[in-house]
């Protein structure tokens, strides 16, 4: 009987193709929206977001306006529960939301190597730590900007030599460019000698992040600049708050895509069953059970949805894998990454929508009054 379903779909191939294409486009958008949400989730939760703190200037939100003394790191290190402190100078080409944001983080090369979860896929750490204008570039930036080891890369007043390309277990890191701290501090226009944008604080395993954060702010209150310390995840969520709202709203777009596939496949299947209601009556006259007739319709709608949905999901995964897309603001970036979870969700949503879309026409095919249907021309 499966042959019957396949042949029916093939016989109406224009309709099948249009429905499958529609489902594919909708699931493509669904997966893209899903990957943005996953990116935000990864950025604001997980061990990197929860077990490290960001010390920022109080009441400042943009990296260009936060100017903390570099030697705060020494005072922070004295607080119990702090394992290491990395002063970071941030420079970004765009403070507002951008799809091609370039963010430089200047920090001590040795500290970067020892504290950040980075693996060089090209180049070497030696060149990075010995050359003043050397930079290591995140995989996504390299991909978007076509950078490779040895290239000279200039943006604004900054010009660096690419000493390596890295990948990271924290996807948002792959949208960063790391330089040495001194190089970025002395960049024309920043005038940040002895100053940094933020301090990243790494905690010991048993430290309570919120307690340590309060102690840091209390200790530095007596200093020249007051600070606001938060978990890294909370800091990034706050920095990207307008984007977070937008992404929160975008999940409705994901639901709308699911609704679109549902209505598209349901319409196609209803039309298909209504066109062939006599065929279903003939099948039941021959001895096909009503439930089996329903299963035939459900199989048809599920095939349409699964083929379109899986194609759209696969396309989205491919585009996300090769595109290296990211969105960012105020120096924080959200990476769009393909994931197995997203691929499985795409396939499962397609399956569920396929079944849901076929329910009404399946009931129609299974409960059709045989004699009335046979009389139809």
């Amino acid at each position, binding site marked *: 009987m499966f042959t019957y379903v396949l*042949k029916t779909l093939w016989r109406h191939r224009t309709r099948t193709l249009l429905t499958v294409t529609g489902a594919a486009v909708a699931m493509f958008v669904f997966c893209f929206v899903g990957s943005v949400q996953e990116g935000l989730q990864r950025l604001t939760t997980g061990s990197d977001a929860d077990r490290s703190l960001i010390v920022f200037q109080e009441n400042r939100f943009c990296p260009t306006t936060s100017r903390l003394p570099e030697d705060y790191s020494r005072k922070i290190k004295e607080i119990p529960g702090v394992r290491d402190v990395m002063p970071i100078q941030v420079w970004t080409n765009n403070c507002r939301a951008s799809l091609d944001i370039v963010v430089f983080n200047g920090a001590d090369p040795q500290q970067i190597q020892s504290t950040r979860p980075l693996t060089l896929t090209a180049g070497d750490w030696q060149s990075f730590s010995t050359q003043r204008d050397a930079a290591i570039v995140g995989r996504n930036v390299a991909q978007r900007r076509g950078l490779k080891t040895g290239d000279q890369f200039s943006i604004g007043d900054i010009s660096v030599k690419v000493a390596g390309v890295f990948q990271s277990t924290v996807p948002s890191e792959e949208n960063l460019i790391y330089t040495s701290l001194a190089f970025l501090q002395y960049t024309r226009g920043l005038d940040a000698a002895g100053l940094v944008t933020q301090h990243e604080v790494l905690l010991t395993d048993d430290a309570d992040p919120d307690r340590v954060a309060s102690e840091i702010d209390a200790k530095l209150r007596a200093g020249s600049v007051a600070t606001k310390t938060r978990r890294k995840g909370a800091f990034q969520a706050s920095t990207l708050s307008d984007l977070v709202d937008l992404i929160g709203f975008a999940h409705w777009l994901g639901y709308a895509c699911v609704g679109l596939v549902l209505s598209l496949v349901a319409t196609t299947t209803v039309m298909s069953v209504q066109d062939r209601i006599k065929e279903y009556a003939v*099948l039941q*006259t*021959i*001895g096909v059970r*009503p439930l089996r007739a329903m299963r035939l319709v459900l199989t048809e709608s599920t095939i349409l949805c699964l083929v379109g949905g899986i194609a759209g999901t696969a396309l989205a995964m491919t585009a996300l894998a090769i595109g290296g897309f990211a969105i960012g603001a105020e120096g924080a970036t959200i990476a769009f990454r393909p994931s197995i979870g997203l691929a499985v969700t795409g396939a499962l949503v397609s399956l569920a929508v396929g079944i849901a879309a076929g329910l009404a026409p399946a009931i129609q095919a299974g409960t059709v009054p045989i004699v009335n249907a*046979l009389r139809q021309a």
Partner: protein
Amino acid sequence: MALVELRGVSKSFRKGDETITPLDDIDLDIDAGDFVSLMGPSGTGKSTLLNLVSGIDRPDSGTITVDGTEVTKLSRSKLADWRAANLGYIFQTHNLIPVLTAYENVELPTLLLKLSSTQRRQRVELALEAVGLSDRADHYPRQLSGGQEQRVGIARAIVAHPKVVVADEPTGSLDTETSEQVQILLQRLNKELDITLLMVTHDSDAASIASRQLMLDRGKFLERGGDKEMGRQGEREVGVGNAGDSVAIKKFG
């Protein structure tokens, strides 16, 4: 005991404000191996009777028993199973599934039975041979003539070796010559395979090939003589053409 027994069967329809009762307290017995033709003016309930016997419609009252099974008591699903195993239905308009080949159309009923793929293939091939269409197995309905389509429909009706085959004006949409070929085929199936046939027809020539000819008028059956030897007449007047031969039909049986 008759193979098909109808007792006190009534069926009414609403047509606007009017209630029409074409079948009112009908009794009928059909023995195994009978070939019964059913004639009568339009609207007298011939097709309704056929639909009731085949279990695709239900009577308002009365019982219908086929080979000891009271079909009027079966649920819709059980009726489907019963039809798959016991009933063949030949439609006036053939009603072949357009996306399936002749072979696949004939194979459909066998997919509902517990048969091995070898048994299934064998049955389908023999059924197609019995109706003289082995060489058209791979053809789609649109590639067949009306008569060939009807013969595929007949092969589909007999492939599961049903106890009863019902035919609703099987020659109604065919030209005279093709119609006579189909009549010959039906008569051979009845005589050589002992298939019990109940056929509704408007065509008195078609009706005359049956062993029993019933006339349904105003809710009553009138029985006439019959059993014209269409085979001999066919050989003489229209020829059996490619409507299957005795050897093929016997092989199928």
